[in-house]
């Protein structure tokens, strides 16, 4: 999908040379249409053999019985060693204690920040806890005035709020993922912290559409902290003016008390259960999972590999911007693994936006979220109850 779909074609000749008899055909999909097309392919019995799947989609395709369980194959594999993978990422592919995918690359969120502006406010290191972060934001706001901000939390993205919410001990969904758990103390603390950043003027109540060019605004100092993902390392290097190149850095996310967790995002490689060539499909996955191939893949795309071995060698070991990601990856958690999650995450964003605009209090927003999540999960509840009863 997307760039990965183009780049992976350059790895095919080598695979076909070492695996005579296997021929690989790549069909590229744009990310924006991928989900829809795969569901349509499933409905029309035209699923591919191997596919890159966003790891939040895995539960949905497992619910469709579209994916092959891979536990046996991993146990027999000399290439894929689960212990070498970051635990949080591996876990995203495990549904009801069966494995349905092998992590291909990782996407997580952490802080990108302006070192110079932070130093101007009197701090020489990024925040480790929420309270440290608040102090910094307050000091920076005092310096920056009303027209500039400490942090950009775009209201059309659910990820910044979600990663802060995943840092709490209570899960976001309760009862085997059949009910919302947003009225828990943990989530309310996160939401209060999030809303507070807007109330105090640390964050502007804007969407990405209002900030016409993130990199220009970051260079201008319109905001100093930005929660975003690994693809922006390359973008920041490319798009920020040369004079600023020494003044930005990445940092792991601060947590409620000490270093915090982030989300275990990314893509996995899966085998569809309708495939007729599962053995060949598995060999291709093993090939792509070799540390040296992953290393090449990183050089080609900038995507972060899911294996510790790959991180210890090659270009990644020396990349200062990737260091924070390496650190963060030891602390990542999957989003709730239910097919309805994307929709609940969207409601999370919509309700949080209303809270930021003062239309709902934190308590009201949490109650509203639980109500919406429970409505969305109604079918899942009834199916599970039915299955349990019969």
């Amino acid at each position: 999908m997307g760039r990965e779909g183009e780049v992976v074609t350059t790895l095919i000749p080598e695979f076909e040379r070492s695996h005579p008899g296997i021929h690989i055909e790549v069909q590229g999909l744009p990310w924006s249409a991928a989900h829809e097309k795969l569901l349509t392919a499933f409905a029309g019995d035209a699923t591919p053999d191997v596919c890159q799947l966003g790891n939040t989609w895995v539960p949905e395709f497992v619910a469709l019985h579209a994916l092959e369980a891979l536990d046996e194959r991993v146990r027999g594999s000399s290439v894929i060693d689960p212990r070498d993978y970051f635990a949080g990422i591996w876990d995203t592919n495990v549904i009801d204690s069966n494995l349905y995918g092998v992590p291909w690359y990782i996407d997580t969120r952490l802080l990108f920040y302006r070192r110079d502006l932070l130093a101007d406010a009197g701090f020489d290191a990024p925040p480790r806890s929420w309270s440290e972060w608040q102090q910094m934001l307050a000091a920076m706001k005092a310096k920056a005035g009303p027209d500039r901000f400490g942090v950009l939390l775009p209201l059309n993205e659910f990820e910044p709020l979600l990663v802060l919410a995943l840092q709490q001990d209570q899960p976001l969904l309760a009862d085997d993922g059949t009910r919302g758990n947003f009225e828990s103390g943990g989530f309310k603390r996160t939401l209060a912290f999030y809303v507070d950043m807007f109330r105090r003027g640390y964050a502007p109540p804007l969407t990405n559409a209002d900030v016409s060019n993130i990199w220009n605004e970051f260079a201008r100092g319109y905001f100093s902290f930005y929660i975003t993902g690994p693809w922006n390392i390359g973008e920041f290097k490319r798009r920020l003016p040369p004079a600023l190149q020494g003044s930005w850095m990445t940092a792991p996310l601060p947590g409620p008390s000490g270093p915090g967790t982030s989300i275990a995002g990314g893509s996995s490689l899966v085998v569809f259960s309708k495939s007729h060539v599962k053995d060949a499909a598995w060999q291709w996955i093993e090939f792509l999972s070799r540390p040296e191939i992953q290393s090449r893949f990183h050089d080609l795309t900038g995507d972060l590999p899911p294996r510790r071995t790959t991180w210890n060698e090659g270009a990644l070991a020396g990349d200062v911007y990737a260091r924070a990601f390496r650190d963060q990856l030891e602390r990542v958690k999957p989003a709730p693994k239910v097919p309805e999650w994307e929709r609940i995450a969207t409601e999370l964003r919509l309700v949080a936006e209303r809270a930021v605009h003062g239309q709902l209090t934190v308590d009201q927003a949490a109650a509203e979220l639980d109500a919406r999540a429970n409505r969305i999960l109604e079918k899942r509840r009834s199916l599970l109850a039915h299955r349990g009863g019969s």
Partner: protein
Amino acid sequence: VRQRAAWPFVAPALAVIGVFFFLPVLAALVLSFTDFDIYALADLSNLRFTGVRNYVELLQRSEFWNALGNTLYFVIAGVPLSIGASLGTALLLHTRVTRFKPFFRTALFAPVVTTLVASAVVWRYLFNTRYGWLNYALGSIGLPAIDWLGDPHFSMPAIIVFAVWKNFGYNMIILLAGLQSIPEELYEAARIDGASAWRQFVYVTLPMLMPMLSMVAILTVAGYFQLFAEPYVMTQGGPLQSTVSVLYLMYDEGFKWWNLGSASAVAFVLFILMFAITAVQLRFMRRGATR
């Protein structure tokens, strides 16, 4: 006999309409009484027949009423503005004093044929809070800047301005054709009777243009009820759901979340609503015509 002979001639058309229109509509109606979703896609035994529950739940959801309110806002403010702009420009293009008519006609029609996405991107820059030309213009006459696409009070007006700009050219051409078909003798007679320009407009132009205006009104109302693409590319329904239309809600429900059952229910509610409103419009117009 003659009737029987007609059937073979209309049969191909009927078959096409039946297969590609009535059958899908019927299927959608059946679907709207079920909870078809991805679980049902996996295994049809997960499909539950839920009767009118989709409809009842829809009418209880605040998102639906919000979307309906936004759609009505768009129709009630947008249709008169749109037709007003079309009529105004058509009249200007029709007057004898206007020069370079072909140029203006083409220029004013151009928005209709430009790609919606491309023009939306340009308009997003015009609406930009800090660098947009619109706020620059406001600032130069001493008015405060407006957060057009970020403030829920101004997002819908911004969408309306964009939609009117995008669509008025089409109706303008129809009305211009209508104006050109009004016989010059009528104006001559009115002038001999000493009618002012305004009275000529009210007593000659408007009545003669009525059939055209009625058609334009019906088409525009029906078109504006189906608001979707403008908010989809400009605001993605935000801020604060202030630009989510009924059709947008249906799209999300159906193609984003694969709840095809409840999406079909949304479609039928919108259909009934538009059907009723068009029926009322037609009745008014017939009454106006017989009077």
